[in-house]
């Protein structure tokens, strides 16, 4: 493949370092005992949302998971609003009512993180239906894990999208684990992409530690969708460097060697090396991006900490657009 243009390369790098900076900041704040919700870190997996969302605009749709911070950032959700949401503040993306597992910005096509495993696939399928009915070339993406690929919604969604030729890209982030359960135990097929056979659609595999490989394969899938040819299943082989959630110790179910082998192929570090070698971006440019991301996170935390909590009246608002009254 030929490398994407410089602006795209820069966006890819910026997005990956922003995701990592956000996740690291969140972890720091939690470890420092800040009054902030925990969550599921996506450190290690940055290349996947980045490589996929590089092909999307705000008019396209994304449905995300419990491990959704990276998807939100890659889809353009405001980082300050995200941080404030983790702090449960009125200025949060969801005005403090959603928290880490429900960050959303429908105006940006981000249909929400989702705390129920497998629950977002039908949502993304429905967004794809909207796209198809509108006929303006929008596409829809569902991110989900290896564990989620065993839910019935996976099957029902892919079948539906296939028979209706919906412009949906089903992106399986195969990070080898669902909580402490190894994929080779839970999933009766070696490559999840192979499950595409059951719906007669393309099943692609990308190296989820290589943002350019994800970018390329996702590009094929997005183009196919925009051409009206229907859905694609794209499996990205990736890895989460930390536990399932912030307090989980992954060494109870996997080896340090395995972790090291993935860290050695870290998506950001290897992109950096290649970018320098191929003269895509300069060292200075990349350092500037990293500093920018750090500064943004500091600003985001300040913003969150300075923001007020929701008013107690908010307990009973937003349940409905219209409803007579909800008693407390």
């Amino acid at each position, binding site marked *: 493949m030929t490398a994407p243009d410089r602006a795209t390369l820069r966006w890819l790098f910026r997005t990956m370092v922003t995701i990592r900076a956000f996740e690291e900041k969140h972890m720091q704040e939690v470890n420092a005992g800040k009054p902030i919700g925990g969550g599921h870190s996506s450190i290690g997996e940055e290349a996947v949302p980045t490589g996929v969302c590089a092909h999307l605009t705000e008019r396209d*749709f994304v*449905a995300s998971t419990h491990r959704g911070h990276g998807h939100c950032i890659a889809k353009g959700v405001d980082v300050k609003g995200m941080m404030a949401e983790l702090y449960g503040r009125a200025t*949060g*993306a*969801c*005005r*403090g*009512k*959603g928290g880490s597992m*429900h960050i*959303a*910005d*429908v*105006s940006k096509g981000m*249909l*929400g993180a*989702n*705390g*129920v495993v497998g*629950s977002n*696939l*039908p*949502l*993304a*399928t*429905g*967004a*794809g*239906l*909207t*796209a198809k*009915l*509108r006929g303006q070339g929008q596409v*829809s993406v569902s991110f989900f894990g290896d564990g989620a690929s065993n839910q*019935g*919604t996976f*099957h*029902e*969604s892919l*079948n*539906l999208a296939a*028979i*209706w030729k919906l412009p949906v890209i089903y992106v399986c982030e195969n990070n080898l684990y669902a909580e402490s359960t190894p994929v080779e135990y839970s999933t009766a097929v070696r490559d999840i992409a192979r499950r595409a056979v059951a719906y007669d659609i393309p099943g692609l595999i990308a190296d989820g530690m290589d943002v350019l490989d994800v970018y390329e394969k996702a590009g094929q899938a997005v183009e196919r969708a925009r051409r009206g040819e229907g859905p694609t299943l794209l499996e990205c082989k990736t890895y989460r460097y930390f536990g399932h959630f912030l307090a989980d110790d992954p060494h109870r179910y996997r080896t340090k060697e395995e972790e090291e082998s993935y860290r050695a192929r870290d998506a950001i570090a290897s992109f950096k090396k290649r970018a320098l070698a191929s003269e895509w971006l300069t060292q200075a440019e990349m350092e500037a991006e990293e500093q920018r991301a750090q500064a943004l996170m500091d600003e985001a935390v300040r913003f969150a900490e300075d923001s007020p909590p929701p008013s107690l009246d908010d307990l009973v*608002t*937003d*349940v*409905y*657009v*219209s*409803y*007579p009254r*909800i008693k407390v």
Partner: protein
Amino acid sequence: MTTTAATRQITYGEAEREALREEMRRDPNVIIMGEDIAGAAGRQAQGFTDAWGGPFGSTKGLIQEFGAERVRDTPISEAGFIGAAVGAAATGMRPVADLMFIDFMGCCLDQIMNNAAKMRYMFGGKSKMPLTIMTRIGAGVGSAAQHSETLYSMLTHLPGLKVVAPSDAYTAKGLLISAIRDDDPVIVCDHKRLLGRRGPVPEEPYTWPIGKARILKPGKDVTLVGISLMTTVCLDAAAALAKDGVDAEVVDLLSLSPMDDEAVLTSVRKTQRLVVVDEDTPRCSLATDIAALVADEAFDFLAAPVKRVNAPHTPVPFSRALEQAYMPTPQKVVDTVKGIMG
């Protein structure tokens, strides 16, 4: 709501079809999806189309006017297609999803409960969910335990959902139009035994407000609250009671969530007695919900124990005789009323 005098009589099912047709004409974002809602899917070219029009014919003819893009037959995948309707609603469509029988809600409850009902709240009010789900409820047609449930009580339990249960052709059309135009998710529960009943229905579009009950028969001695088919049971009971000199007021609930608390309370404050008639099984049901409301907010007006007539705490039996015994009947209501007339 309109008060046009309507002389034309059509069935409940036809009234719903008319509501769908009018709303689909009015708003291109309205689409319908469900199993066999047209039928013979994909076989237009071979001369087959609209083979079923839904299991009860409620969607018959729509595909001919609106085409297969807007009237979409689905595979048997309730979580998939109802979840897709949720996703379509979140992104600007106004879908009507057909869940053939409410008994199948266990196949898709996650999409209804965790996505449709909660998205707006979880997202801090920054989304809408203009989704309608049409489904069929009720026993009395020999369909046994997995095709005869009522179950609206479980959906009423869930914040974020609206739930309505029309009781005749007129309210069927008005409530379905309201549901489609509503920006919140609304579940429309249609009793199988009401679908074929005729009643006067205006031809033009109109709405019956979600959240509003109506008094079908004024009375002063006891309040009977009916839901869906049970409203007709209340009317029959009221007629029988009248012969014995008991003047019952019949409240047709229509909306289960939001519920017209005031209509119920006002009636009970006047009659001082309440019998709720609810085909759903008794535990944690609409009947207990209404009884609890009254025992709290109209307590000082009550002259007698608050009574409920429900189906028993059993699945729906197949055998006709048993199914008959399962259903709340006018006689059971009459007996219950007599027990509290002191």
